[in-house]
């Protein structure tokens, strides 16, 4: 589903070069729930950003569904992100000036050829119902708890029914009970067919996924199957 080949990412300033990712080769298969772990600054988020087409690698190729996308222009990348990928961020990244419902609707605004206003509303409501927030639709992010905000973020990630969900430390800002709740929702989405890649610091969370990829200083040092329950089709 996502294939990264010889990925290298270098951050350059006028005085210093930092190698964030070094020769990473990785394939994420359809239906997989993979976690990426490693110490701070090892390149986990950079890898997730490159996987999600939010950032460009300095070298290497990205292939999504067999199509090399490294040379895609802004518009094509935007379309791919919109149709295939949903993001969940550690700090939620909700737009405070918009209601919960309007926030969830955002991915649908940029989907061409479908979803008129009314059907967008319906889809956004359905996504919020899935994460148990149908009673908070008209609230604003500032009126919600951390766990509720992350559930809104999950609703926004799934509203367009993307095949891939990329979660960057989705439980990092939550207490353990709330973190467990969020992970349960992700597991449920995975059970329903979504491919999920999650960056985490939490070993216990990582052990609840199928596959654990470890990074150290920008290099992939381990790639292990965590549970026997590998999903069908892998």
């Amino acid at each position, binding site marked *: 589903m996502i294939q990264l080949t010889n990925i290298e990412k270098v951050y350059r300033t006028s005085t210093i070069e930092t190698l964030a990712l070094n020769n990473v080769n990785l394939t994420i298969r359809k239906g997989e729930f993979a976690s990426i772990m490693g110490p701070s600054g090892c390149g986990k988020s950079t890898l997730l950003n490159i996987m999600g087409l939010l950032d460009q690698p300095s070298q290497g190729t990205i292939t999504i569904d067999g199509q090399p996308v490294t040379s895609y222009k802004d518009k094509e990348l935007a379309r791919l992100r919109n149709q295939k990928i949903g993001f969940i961020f550690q700090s939620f*990244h909700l*737009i405070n000036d918009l209601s919960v419902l*309007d926030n969830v609707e955002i991915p649908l605004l940029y*989907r061409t050829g479908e979803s008129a206003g009314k059907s967008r509303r319906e889809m956004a409501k359905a996504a919020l119902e899935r994460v148990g927030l149908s009673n908070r639709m008209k609230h604003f992010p500032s009126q919600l708890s951390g766990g509720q905000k992350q559930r809104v973020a999950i609703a926004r990630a799934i509203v367009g029914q993307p095949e891939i969900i990329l979660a960057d430390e989705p439980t990092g800002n939550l207490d353990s009970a709330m973190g467990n709740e969020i992970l349960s929702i992700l597991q449920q989405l995975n059970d329903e067919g979504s491919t999920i890649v999650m960056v985490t610091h939490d070993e216990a969370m990582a052990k609840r996924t199928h596959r654990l990829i470890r990074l150290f200083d920008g290099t992939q040092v381990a790639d292990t199957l965590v549970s026997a329950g590998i999903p069908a089709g892998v």
Partner: protein
Amino acid sequence: MILNYIKIAWKVLLRHPFYTFITLFGISLTLTVLMVLTSFVDHLVGSHYPENRRDELLYIQRMAQRDSTRQSTRMGPLSYNFIKQYVLPLKTPEKVGVASMFSFANAYVNGQRLSLQTKLTDAGFWEVTDFEFLEGKPFNEQNIASNDHVAVITDDLKKQYFEVDTQPVVGKTIEVDNETYRVIGVVRGAPVTRPITAADIYFPYNIRKSNYKSPGMNGNFVALLKAKSPADFPAIKEEFNQTVSKIPLPQEDGGFKYYILETSADTYIEAWLHNFFDRPASSIFYSVIAVFMLLFMGLPAINLVNVNVSRIMERASEIGIRKAFGAPSKTLIWQFIIENLFITLIGGGIALGLACIVIYLINQSGWIAKADLTINFSVFAVSLLVCVVFGLLSGVAPALRMARLSIVDALKAS
């Protein structure tokens, strides 16, 4: 989608009252000044009472007589003699009216002196203009032919001289500069900013004190040529130019020998610009006006661009989020342009209200007698256009900068 953008723009406005105040103050003050200025220009050169058909009128307001070296020039309105010989016989105009530039005269009421602006006109003047007769009627060819001592006065003069408001005064007499005239009509007065038609009292051009018989070319009269439609203007101008070109030169007028005679039939705006420029106003004049307008709008716009750009990072997170979920840069550029247009239009709405108040105050102040400044459709259209240009000017640069932000940097910024 647009509704979503407008919601955001509205929230951004509410979030920062001080910034909102500065933004809207800048926009609305600039637009108010522009609207009042355009309204004033429209008041000066547009079609308004009693020249409601200026778009069908050509004016011959002045002529220049020059010596062969163009060192000496005599310039001014026309003599009645010139108009009679070279303008009244023209075939292409539908109708020609003649009026003098205003002169001054005195009348006395209860020992108090009234200083009056007087105008001499022919009968055609009343046909090419659109005076509203509150009483009576204008003088006609018959009155002129029989040298009737008649006058048309304005409603203001009626109140001042006869000290009545509603009672009719037609048939009563008025004494001006020791001559007695019978009032034949009362018209609603015109603003002094319409010098071809405005006066306190109108007499037939052939009253005893008139100099209409002076033989020279220069005098105190102007001619108003009414065309059937503006499409006839070129033919009228051509016929008049042909007629003038046939005048034998050199001639002598009041001891001044002239070899060159320059005069033309112009639209009101051309004639108006002739007052400021010795030769016909060219496109350069309009370009200068356009550049001035652009600068006038440009300076507050540049200031706004500055304010907007400096606040980019505050909205970086939103840009990052929208891009992450599939917004192409082009769409985001439009979002910020639409937001800016929305804010500018709010400023435009406030400016429209302020301009109405300022115009009302100008009209009421008596600063311009009989002023009738209005926000009419054309002024509003210009103002709306100005709003849109203003919105684009102040929106494009920040929008481009915002849309170029990398997604990762934008998300990190929050």
